[in-house]
């Protein structure tokens, strides 16, 4: 029982990070039709910006984590907005060039981080409480898992409220369905593009910060590995659907953990790919296709 509880909470923690990455990716593709391969680099930007800024300000681990984390999130949002304005905007209606640019950017940003801070992992500031464990049904659960799950749940609620109750959310939901018709109602949908890109970048950066908390280190390859599973989550959840991404992220995180433990180590990734194949066969559009909610 205790093992199952530990696996479940760890899977939810992992799913929380997948969700944060996937939600931005999903909204960006749903609204703009841009498959952003540079999204993983934004995870790395967020993680390294948080670690670097925390190091600069010094002080206790909580202070470095919170202020550094906030800086990382802002950095992710700003870099994403710049990417949209400078590199993506001139390439709307040119999907092949978009893919080339975002792949190139992912490689360049990854190389830049390695060039500045090296390829080795860097220790992330972790408050003592997060390293401690809490006993639940006999399982000793690291406290950082609750932080990851709590932050992802808060983001899910916040994003849902934003999409449902604000005018801007209405524009995004409509734009995911039919961009041209949103423009035909007199709305400058390009502004929505920039804001959604920045929001997606900030969420990816938040995932980067939480990955530092989860793994205890930041490293240049983390963004790429999280991005692969985030893409799977987006496809399973349905492009443009926040709710779909949340369900898919939880499913992927849990299946990975259960399969790795109850089968043999390494089968978790295979199980996720099988889940993806099954969903694509049964519901090719994902769990909640083309509707932002």
């Amino acid at each position, binding site marked *: 029982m205790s093992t199952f509880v530990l696996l479940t909470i760890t899977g939810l923690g992992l799913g929380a990070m997948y969700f944060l990455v996937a939600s931005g990716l999903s909204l960006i593709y749903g609204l703009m039709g841009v498959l952003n391969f540079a999204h993983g680099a934004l995870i790395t930007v967020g993680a390294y910006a948080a670690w670097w800024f925390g190091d600069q300000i010094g002080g206790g681990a909580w202070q470095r984590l919170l202020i550094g984390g906030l800086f990382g999130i802002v950095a992710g949002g700003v870099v994403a907005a710049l990417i949209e304005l400078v590199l993506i905007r001139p390439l709307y209606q040119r999907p092949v060039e978009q893919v080339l640019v975002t792949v190139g950017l992912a490689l360049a940003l990854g190389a830049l981080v390695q060039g500045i801070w090296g390829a080795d992992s860097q220790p992330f500031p972790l408050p003592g409480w997060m390293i401690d464990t809490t006993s639940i049904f006999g399982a000793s659960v690291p406290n950082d898992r609750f932080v990851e799950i709590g932050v992802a749940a808060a983001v899910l609620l916040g994003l849902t409220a934003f999409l449902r109750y604000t*005018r801007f959310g*209405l*524009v995004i*939901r*409509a734009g995911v*369905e*039919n961009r*041209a*018709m*949103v*423009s*035909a*109602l*007199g*709305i*400058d*949908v390009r502004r929505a593009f920039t804001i959604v890109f920045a929001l997606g970048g900030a969420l990816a950066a938040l995932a980067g910060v939480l990955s530092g908390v989860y793994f205890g280190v930041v490293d240049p390859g983390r963004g790429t590995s999280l991005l692969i599973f985030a893409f799977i989550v987006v496809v399973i959840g349905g492009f443009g659907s926040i709710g779909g991404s949340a369900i898919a992220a939880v499913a992927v995180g849990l299946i990975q953990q259960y399969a790795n433990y109850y089968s043999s180590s390494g089968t978790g990734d295979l199980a996720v790919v099988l889940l993806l194949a099954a969903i694509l066969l049964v519901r090719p559009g994902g769990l909640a296709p*083309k*509707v*932002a*909610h």
Partner: protein
Amino acid sequence: MTDTTPATAERTALSVRDLHVYLGESHILQGISFDVPADGVTAVLGRNGVGKTTTMRALMGLVPRSRGTIELDGEDVTRLPTHAVVRRGVGYVPEDRDVFAGLTVEENLRLAERGGDPRYDLVHELFPELRQRAAQRAGTLSGGQQQMVAIARALLNRNDLLLVDEPTKGLAPLLVTEVAQALERAAELTTIVLVEQNLSVVQRLARDVVVLDGGRVVHAGPAAELLADPEHVRRLLGVHGGGH
């Protein structure tokens, strides 16, 4: 080609000159020119595939225009993006309604609001059903109800020009009458460019007509004059005049 300026011309709400549109390799609009007089309805007619919908989409900036000019009330809007054209007082009802299926009726209308004072009174007077169905998702409405939402979105704002593309397509006869009534009322408030295949609706609403064939304007003039000549109608449109 006949004169492309309708005989009843007064103040010109819309002026199109030598407009060319390519979709891929296809040269869809091959230099169309016509004027739309302010107030009243001008119908754009023609057989299937002659470029009527492309004309509407080109006026909205929804397809790239390779050559020519479009003027609204004397202002050149040819190079403006779609949202900027709309903000100059143009409402659009697309051919396939394009309501946002995942949004409620109320949200579809709220999204269409531009500036203050949206005309919900007018919309609910014309389509009282929309008030009752405000909380219903637009994707679950019937085709006729979706058309009401599409027209209501365009009527919500005080537009100078409405572009309405095949509003009665696929509707039951009773709904065709209801839509025609709504457009008749709208025509009292604004200039309308109407693409329509149903000649009885054209006869009821249109003051002027522009006929397209092969991406070119082949006739323009008073609607009554054209519709009074069944042989001319048959030759231009391939249908018998007097409605169908």
